[in-house]
């Protein structure tokens, strides 16, 4: 019994099934050991949080593999190594998420104020007290632009997307050429790069209206191209989840197809549909390139989506860095402020989607 000492250390009654294993807490001890080693190494070469994590991970993996190889067998050692790698991968993915959110919040919080939200930028005026030229730094024009453009895009995409989904699920015969074609084309549309959508809107509007065709409407068209396939797919998914039983029950009552769809199928699926649409909005609200192509950018307030450049939050975040004004620091700060607002919007939309899904989920007591 080579493992007698090992098992003797366990407080529980000896169990022959536990022989030949590393003790229960070995994972934890190895992690701590790895951490101490990593900290020591960091002491030698300079401290860095990320480095600490990486070295802890590396040391842990080496240690657990060799320990297990010695005490257990090659198969178990490999199993432990992979478990360690898989968990490391997850932590590794959390690092950028946490870092991004932290950076945005810490950089953006400084400029975020009521004034930032409620005034529009670029409107330089002379301060009556000091008689100096002050340019205000607000983001109102970008907030209004974002809401208008996204709202218009939703207005275009939801009817087309929902009706297409209804066609695919309720009307089309599965082997009918139109259904196959549309199904294929929705896939194609899902793959359109966002900047190509922007180029399309730009080309369309310049061909129709001449060279200076930047407008919020144009940007909304670009976003719709990106949004429609998402809406189609999520609505389609939700409609398919409605049991065929319910449709049959309705048909058997002599209810027409149109009424069955609008009064039975859609109400049953409405939670999922609303969730899908909200998530689709959250996805396009952060699009930068297509809006930049189609609506250009501006510092002045423009609430008319039919003509003239329009500012949006993502474009403000981009231009604030790439094309700063005279006051570079102010532009950069504005960029971060816009980024923070944008992230807040996206998070709120995501939360909304989840709340909708929870509240309206079909009630069953089964």
């Amino acid at each position, binding site marked *: 019994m080579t493992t007698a000492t090992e098992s003797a250390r366990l407080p529980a009654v000896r169990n022959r099934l536990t022989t030949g294993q590393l003790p229960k807490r070995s994972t934890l001890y190895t992690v701590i050991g790895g951490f101490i080693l990593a900290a020591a190494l960091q002491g030698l070469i300079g401290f860095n949080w990320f480095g600490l994590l990486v070295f802890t991970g590396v040391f842990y993996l080496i240690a657990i593999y060799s320990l297990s190889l010695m005490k257990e067998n090659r198969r178990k050692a490999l199993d432990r190594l992979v478990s360690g790698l898989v968990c490391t991968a997850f932590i590794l993915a959390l690092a950028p*998420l946490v870092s991004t959110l932290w950076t945005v919040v810490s950089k953006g919080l400084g400029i975020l104020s009521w004034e930032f939200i409620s005034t529009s930028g670029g409107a330089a005026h002379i301060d009556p007290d000091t008689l100096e030229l002050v340019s205000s730094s607000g983001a109102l024009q970008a907030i209004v632009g974002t809401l208008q453009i996204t709202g218009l895009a939703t207005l275009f995409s939801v009817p087309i997307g929902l009706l297409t989904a209804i066609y695919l699920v309720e009307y089309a015969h599965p082997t009918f050429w139109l259904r196959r074609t549309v199904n294929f084309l929705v896939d194609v549309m899902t793959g359109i790069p966002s900047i*190509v959508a922007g180029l399309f809107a730009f080309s369309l509007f310049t061909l129709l209206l001449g060279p200076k065709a930047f407008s919020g409407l144009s940007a909304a068209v670009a976003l719709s191209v990106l949004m429609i396939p998402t809406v189609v797919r999520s609505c389609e998914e939700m409609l398919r989840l409605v049991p065929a039983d319910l449709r049959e029950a309705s048909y058997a009552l002599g209810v027409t197809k149109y009424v069955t769809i609008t009064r039975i199928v859609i109400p049953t699926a409405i939670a999922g549909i609303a969730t899908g649409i909200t998530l689709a909005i959250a996805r396009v609200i952060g699009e930068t390139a297509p809006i930049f192509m189609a609506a250009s950018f501006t510092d002045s307030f423009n609430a008319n989506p039919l003509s003239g450049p329009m500012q949006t939050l993502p474009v403000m975040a981009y231009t604030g860095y790439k094309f700063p004004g005279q006051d570079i620091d102010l532009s950069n700060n504005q960029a971060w402020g816009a980024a923070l607002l944008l992230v807040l919007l996206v998070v709120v939309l995501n939360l909304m989607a989840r709340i909708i899904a929870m509240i309206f989920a079909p009630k069953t007591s089964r």
Partner: protein
Amino acid sequence: MKRKRDVSTSSAVVPARRVTARARPADRVFKFLSTSAAVSIMVILAGVALFLIIRALPAIGANWTTNPDLKTGVTGGFSGFWSYVGPLAFGTVWASVLALLMATPVAIGIALFISHYSPRKMANFLGYIIDLLAAVPSVVYGLWGIMVMRPFLLPLQEWLNAYLGWIPFFSGSVTSTGSSILTGAVVLAVMVLPIITSISREIFLQTPKLHEEAALALGSTRWEMIRLAVFPYGRSGVVSAILLGLGRALGETMAVAMIISPAIVVSFRLITEGENPQTIASNIALNFPIATGLQRDALIGTGLVLFVISLAVNMVARLIVNAKPRRKKVRDAGNPRGSDPGRGDGVSAADAEDDEMLSPLAAHRQERLGDDGYDGADGADGDVAAARTAVSAGFGAGLDKRAEGDQP
């Protein structure tokens, strides 16, 4: 009740005609509307291709060395459209491939962690965290890349150049700002990570429980079970997940435009100053505002090339995804009666179904389920129940919380 009397008081032949008179305009209008919505998808897509081609053709056909517009500015110095777009296409693919090389192993690790390692109750929440990674707008990643990743990776790049500079990838004059293609690719990797993860996770969760249990019953360790049961089942799904990730990386604009300081060159060096290949999308974003006349059309032409490339990648991905359900269908058709087995089958899909309510990225999977359901209707089985199986069983199982109890 009026109509009822109509039919009952008439003879056998006449009432049929009289009933036809009651057309249902609402029904027809609605069917017409939804069909035209479907047709409008075709129109929109045709419009996208058409308008891009109309704008791009003059620039593609022009002589770039003599044309007054094209021989200067952003398009200056190139002999023609193809020699302009060639390096850009290379840069696009190169940056995306680098990103995928970094993202894929991590993404598969995370997907496995969520599907097979984390406590089951946590799986949904962890999936949500990863989806949050996908929800962050790309411009925010761009800012983050500038602020955080550039300085963070700079020492690493200097170190690589100093000590591993003999490897061609790390050779050349090292970047002084950190705005190298390597930094860009790392940020791109973060952005495609959630896509690959969420699709792979869905696919791993679909592994038939029977296969897994069979492997475990043979005395496999968890890793061996994954290799024996999970990977073979999910291989094609993961491949297509990677390709869909590639599709996203190809079209990604902002992160690259903001981070990499580019040149229109073909170079495999990763960490240089001024030798970082430019991507199509980023090139358009950076140069579009300053381009004039035909130069814009040239940029639109490059956009068309990008469209074609990402279309090809997406198509291959879909083909792989859609080729797979055949196997599943055979299994379903083997069930003599559709309705009851649906329950058993539905169990493994139950969790995934719940997730899907929330995950737009899973769209492609639902399509597979849906297509199966319809194929079932055409099946030789002939029994009514078979036609409803996939759809209704999926719903029943999706809502049936007890199904969760069946998970080990």
